[in-house]
Every structure is written in C-alpha cells, then in structure tokens.
C-alpha cells in the first residue's frame, strides 16, 4: 500500500491531521525568562505538566500523559547517563535533542505502522553562560530554539497570540513575581478570541465542534485558578546549588492567585 510515494505522503499527511486533532485540546505551557533565570508555567485539569530533567533543565509537556511520561523518562535517562559518564556540563538540551530525541521522534512519526507520539514539549535551560534558553519540540521531531521565551499549545491560534505577546514583553528585566504575573495575563489574553476572529469563524463547522469540546474550559484566570491546577517551575541561576530547579508551593500559588485576581 505504501510503496508508492504519493500514498506514503498521503499517509503522513493523515498522520499529521490525526496528531493535531488529538493535541487540539492541549492547554498552553509558557516558558519565559526573568532576571535570575527561567520559568515554565501552565494550567491543567490534572497535575503533571511540568518536570525537572537535569540540574539546569526543565520540561513542560502537553498531549497524551503516557507519551509525555515515556519521553520524559527517555530524556531523564539520557541526561543522567551523559552527566555521569562525562560531566553535568555536557548535558545540554541542544545535545539531547539533536543527537537523541529529535531523530527518534522523526523516525517514529514516519514509521506509519507505529502509533505516533501525541506530544508537544517545551524545554527550558539555564546554559553555562547563565542565560535562559527555550526549546519547542514537535511530535515529529522538529525543534526550534527561542531566547525570549515561547509557548506550546494544542491550538495554533492561541499559541500564536501568546507568542506575539511574549515577543513584545521584556521578561529578562522582570523579577520572578512580575514575570509570572505577566505570563499569566498573557495566558489569559491568549485564550480570549479577538472579536473579529469570532465573527469570521462563526459559521465554520470545525470550529463549532472545537468550541463545543472547549465548553466548560476556563476562559479567564479566575476560572482557571478555581477549576484547574497551576504548575510553576523555576530555574534560578543564583541558588548557589547545582540543581537550579524548584517549584512554587501551594501557599505560594495561593498568594500569587490573590495578587493576580483583583
């Protein structure tokens, strides 16, 4: 069936559509810098969106939880084996992606008899020059690096709006608190459809279907805090320890909630 190039391309195209459709409800994960490091945050109905990978590397994922877990463990294994056999300084996201994860994801995606990974990942790193770097990885192994911060989301329009706002915000000069609050407001803005967009999409069946599925999902921060869990992970270059990763505690999240929702 697949020996003809056209059919293979058709199968790949169908696969893209299938994965995108499966990821469409994936909630945004935002990665942004601040004056002492990097932050990854996101709301989700169930906890388990953001993880520590290595001393200076954090991961945010969306998609099927089993796939997120499998790739998280793969990254953990690669990072720890490399850090043990060489040095922690040799463990970088660039190396993990370029020589490890990306080729494997691409191969998996193009082997059309195998189930594809339903996943998008955002990785953040404080490099050894103490600068924050962000990487987006797609289900097909394609990855891209960002300096200013970035976002992943199942809805391309939402991620487009959030990315635009991230690019227009000088997060690097912000304190941790200001950076998180700004990112949350950008998250809220990103989820609101502009009026023009709403009108133009009104009659599209596909969007109606997606809107139906999204019904009951929080549209603003107040609802999001009430219905979902906010996870915030921080990589702070000034901790004085080798592991830069920490997370906001429940009480810190509560304080943040009261500051953000007035």
């Amino acid at each position, binding site marked *: 069936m697949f020996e003809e190039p056209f059919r293979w391309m058709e199968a790949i195209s169908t696969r893209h559509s299938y994965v995108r459709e499966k990821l469409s409800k994936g909630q945004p994960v935002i990665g942004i810098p601040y004056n002492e490091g990097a932050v990854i945050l996101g709301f989700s109905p169930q906890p388990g969106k953001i993880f520590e990978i290595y001393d200076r590397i954090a991961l945010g994922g969306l998609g099927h939880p089993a796939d997120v877990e499998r790739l998280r463990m*793969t990254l953990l294994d690669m990072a720890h084996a490399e850090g043990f056999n060489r040095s922690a300084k040799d463990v970088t996201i660039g190396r993990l992606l370029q020589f490890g994860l990306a080729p494997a994801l691409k191969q998996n995606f193009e082997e059309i008899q195998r189930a594809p990974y339903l996943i998008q990942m955002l990785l953040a790193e404080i490099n050894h020059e103490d600068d924050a770097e962000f990487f987006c990885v797609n289900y097909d192994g394609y990855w891209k690096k960002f300096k200013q911060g970035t976002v992943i989301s199942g809805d391309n329009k939402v991620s487009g709006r959030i990315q635009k706002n991230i690019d227009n915000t000088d997060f690097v000069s912000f304190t941790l608190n200001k950076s998180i609050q700004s990112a949350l407001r950008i998250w809220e803005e990103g989820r609101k459809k502009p009026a023009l967009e709403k009108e133009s999409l009104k009659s599209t069946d596909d969007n109606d279907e997606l809107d139906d599925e999204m019904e009951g999902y929080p549209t603003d921060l107040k609802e999001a805090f009430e219905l979902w869990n906010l996870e915030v992970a921080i990589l702070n270059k000034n901790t004085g320890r*080798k592991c830069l990763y920490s997370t906001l505690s429940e009480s810190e999240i509560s304080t943040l909630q009261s500051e953000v929702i007035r």
Partner: protein
Amino acid sequence: MIENFEKAHGSGDFLELLKRSGHYPQQVLSGIPEKKALDIPQGTTVLAFHYKDGIIVAGDRRATAGNAIMYDRCDKVIPIDDYSLMAIAGVPATAFEMARVLSHNFEYYRRSQLRAMSTEGKVRALSKLLKDNVAMALQGVGGVSPLFAIYDPQQDRAFLYFYDMLGAEFQILTHVATGSGSPMIKGVLEHENLWGTCPLKDRSEGEATSLSIRLLQTAAQFDSATGQARPDDKIYPTIAKITKNGYQFILDDEMADIYKSSMSRS
C-alpha cells in the same frame, strides 16, 4: 544516544540504568592476589558530630600514597544531594566514584519518581555500594570507610551514619571520626561531649566549627597523613554543615577569620 534507553522502566534506580547502559563500575579485578587481612585504608581525618542546628562534617585536605604527600587541596567532604553529605576516608578513586554514583542515584530517583528518596533508602544505597565493593576492598585496592550525614525535612531531623568497608551501617547519635588521624581526636570528642562547656549537640554553629578546626589541627600534629591548614596558601580544612536548609560549606574567605580565631586560646 537513544538506543540504550528504549526499554520501559519506572523503578527510578540509577544503578539499574548504569547496568542497562553498560556503565556500571567494575567490581572485581582479576589477577591481583587477595590480601590475607583487611587493611583499612588510612591517610586522612574526617569527623562529624551533631550540633544545635544539625550536623557538622569536617575533613583535612591531604591525600597521600604511602609516605608521599600527593596533594594538599583534596576535598573529602562531598555533597551528594541538597540534604546529604558524605565524608570519605579510603581509596580516593573508589570514594569519589561512589559519591558520583550516589549523587546521580538520589537525583535520578527524585526526578523520575517525583519525590525524594527516603532517608532509609539513601542510607541503604551507600551500604549497597560498599557491599558491591567488597571484592576491591579485600584485594586492597579499593577500600572506603565513609561518614554519611543526612537531614530529613519530613522528620525535621538530622541523621549521621558511619559505615565499615563491608557495608554495615551504624547510626551515630553524638560524634564520629575516621581515618588515620581519628584515634588522636576520638578521645577529645568524647571528653568535650561529656565534660566540655556543654554537650556537642547543644553547641552553636560557631562553637562547632571552631572545635572541628581545632580537632583537625590536633590530628595533624600527630598524624603525618593528615594535612595541617596552611593559611599562607589559603589551604583550610573543608567544613560543611547540614541543617533544615540543606548543606552549606564554609567558604575559604570566611574560613580565614574563623581559623585565626579558632587557633587562639581565648
């Protein structure tokens, strides 16, 4: 890079990962005659005791090979993770390797299982490494006799352990010292604990630090394999504390003043 990691796994055991990827340290050397007696490697002094806020761990800086002084800036107190420290006496190659394995083991477990390993688990992990190393120790090329200090945030308590080279663990409630210089200071530690100004566990950080410096200086007076501080070369003992805030080393800049005041009689 990815081939060795394809199997499904979830135990959080870093040693299993090392075995799976073919990187587990060699345990038995062939062709080397076994020694009749188990020589405990000497040539150092490390000590630890409970004080008011947690545990203080200290070590001299000298590394020797027989009568030769090989190195005077050796760090024998090694952080394993945020809440544990290991002080080493024995063959440095094996000791440093154990510290590296242990460090990766704890971090790998915490990151993969999304929770820190229990204190009991950490204590057993070092015991297991020592047990796996028995063959090397018996052959006289890899014996290690470590001290292990942990702060358990859940129990809000510090734990101190001494190990023999076969992997037996002994919980220490007051003080402990190991290495060639330790016999010279064990009596002093006991005397200080019983009849000093107050028991060691009630001493402040400053008092505990000062006592550690004096003890290491005393050990160095009588044991050639224990290095004295050399302020002119900025070589001071390694001293770290472990408290509810995790481990913290006293930096060289601070050590200069602390050392100076500790060496005066007052």
